[in-house]
């Protein structure tokens, strides 16, 4: 991109490092972000077999703090955060009154009164507004938007733990899956969690720009692969992790998206959308987010029609070539009758019929014990 094209976009505190590293910069959710450095497939494979690092500073980072932080979040999201232990993270959904998905944040409980809410870049402002609107007079809760002041890195892959132990400390490598902690690094404070959005073992770090830049440089000097949004997308799709805006949005509900496990209906919290979700659950789903693997050659991409008996029955919500499997993979909302594993359908790839079969999720299963298949970052 030219300087003129990036001028109106937001830049992370690592932007100059990406440019110097040869990152190809593209606009994404209002940010100028690297889509790739060496190449999507090389970066993808590095995360599956070794370790890669992503700048995910475009993600929303909202600290929710105060005696009523838990109460506010119980009202805001579908998952009951009261069940979360201190020093742990969990996937959650922010729904509208009709049960549609406004965002799918990852929430970390730092201690009894402090949470970190990590939402999608495109939803960061809206998430803040929605949470703010739920604050009742007299509630002891503060919303601190830390997207500008901090950076966020995702260090992912089976070798990530070793690099983190060397650069940050052995206590980090001992973190259990989905746990989080705060610890010092030089004169800075780090937030570190054992989570990610790739299906592999990995870590996410939120910290000051200075510390983030130092860690990024050190990881690269040690041989960790710098990765862009292109590999982030192929990795999360292979792990069958939904992407908000593609696979889930306000027109989809948690049950048809296969995310009923993130909706806590039975423990008393009256969160936004609860009544609608009770009704939706009782009614049962008419369509289901299904996972499709290609039998034929051809790259399946977003929005391509899914065909059955010559009729378009769905539209691909996410589709890509899978570097690990060597064929295309895709997700689409199929009528329940067509969503059973083993069902054969076709995708219309610019007039060419590419046969696909419904497969279980994930498409690619990491053999790592620390796999974080339900997390996102």
């Amino acid at each position: 991109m030219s300087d003129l094209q990036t001028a109106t976009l937001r830049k992370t505190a690592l932007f100059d490092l990406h440019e110097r590293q040869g990152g190809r910069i593209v606009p994404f959710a209002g940010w100028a972000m690297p889509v790739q450095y060496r190449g999507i497939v090389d970066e993808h494979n590095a995360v599956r077999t070794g370790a890669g690092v992503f700048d995910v500073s475009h993600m929303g980072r909202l600290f929710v703090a105060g005696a009523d932080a838990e109460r506010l979040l119980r009202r805001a999201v579908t998952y009951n955060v009261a069940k979360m232990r201190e020093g742990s993270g969990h996937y959650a959904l922010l729904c509208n009154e009709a049960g549609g998905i406004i965002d799918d944040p990852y929430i970390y409980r730092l201690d009894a009164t402090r949470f970190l809410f990590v939402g999608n870049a495109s939803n960061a402002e809206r998430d803040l507004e929605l949470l703010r609107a739920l604050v009742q007079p007299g509630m002891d809760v503060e919303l601190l938007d830390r997207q500008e002041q901090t950076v966020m890195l995702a260090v992912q892959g089976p070798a990530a733990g070793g690099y983190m132990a060397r650069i940050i400390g052995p206590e980090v490598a001992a973190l259990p899956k989905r746990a989080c902690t705060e610890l010092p690094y030089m004169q800075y404070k780090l937030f570190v969690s054992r989570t990610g959005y790739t299906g592999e073992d990995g870590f996410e770090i939120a910290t000051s720009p200075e510390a983030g830049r130092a860690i990024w440089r050190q990881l690269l000097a040690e041989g960790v692969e710098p990765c862009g949004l292109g590999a982030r997308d192929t990795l999360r799709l292979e792990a069958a992790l939904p992407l908000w805006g593609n696979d889930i949005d306000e027109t989809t509900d948690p049950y048809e998206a296969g995310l009923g496990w993130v909706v806590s209906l039975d423990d008393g919290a009256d969160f936004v959308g609860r009544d609608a979700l009770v009704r939706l659950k009782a009614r049962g789903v008419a369509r289901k987010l299904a996972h499709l693997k290609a039998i034929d050659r051809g790259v399946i991409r977003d929005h391509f029609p899914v065909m059955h008996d010559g009729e378009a029955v769905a539209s691909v919500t996410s589709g890509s070539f899978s570097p690990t499997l060597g064929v295309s993979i895709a997700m689409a909302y199929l009528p329940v009758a067509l969503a059973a594993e083993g069902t054969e359908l076709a995708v219309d790839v610019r007039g060419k019929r590419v046969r696909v079969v419904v497969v279980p999720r994930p498409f690619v299963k990491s053999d790592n014990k620390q796999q974080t298949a339900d997390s996102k970052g």
Partner: protein
Amino acid sequence: MAASPADRKYSKEHEWVLVDGEAATIGITDFAQDQLGDVVYVDLPEPGATVTQFEKMGEIESVKAVSDLFTPASGEVTEVNQKVVEKPELVNSDPHGDGWLIKVKLGDAAELDKLLTAGEYDEFASGQGAG
């Protein structure tokens, strides 16, 4: 980006043609493969098919994008690079060599005058960089 080989001619659609008598070998340029990224499929015409200069002859797909292939020279397809069909990444690793796409029997050598020299092409491509 290294200078394009001077032994062949180039189209503004980022294909090259290397002529040896009546036979011509056709591929995509280093610039094109770099812009596309990891190539995962190529869809090429069958041997015996006739292709027409600057018209679509196939498709090339990378992980992120699909692009039409336009032939820089008219003629009858005599050979398709099966190695590239089976290992499309050859287009990335050796676009001007083992990553060639098709060979044709030239229909009209005069039409090659409409193509660019290596120097002209490199200047053209440098104005197109998106990265």
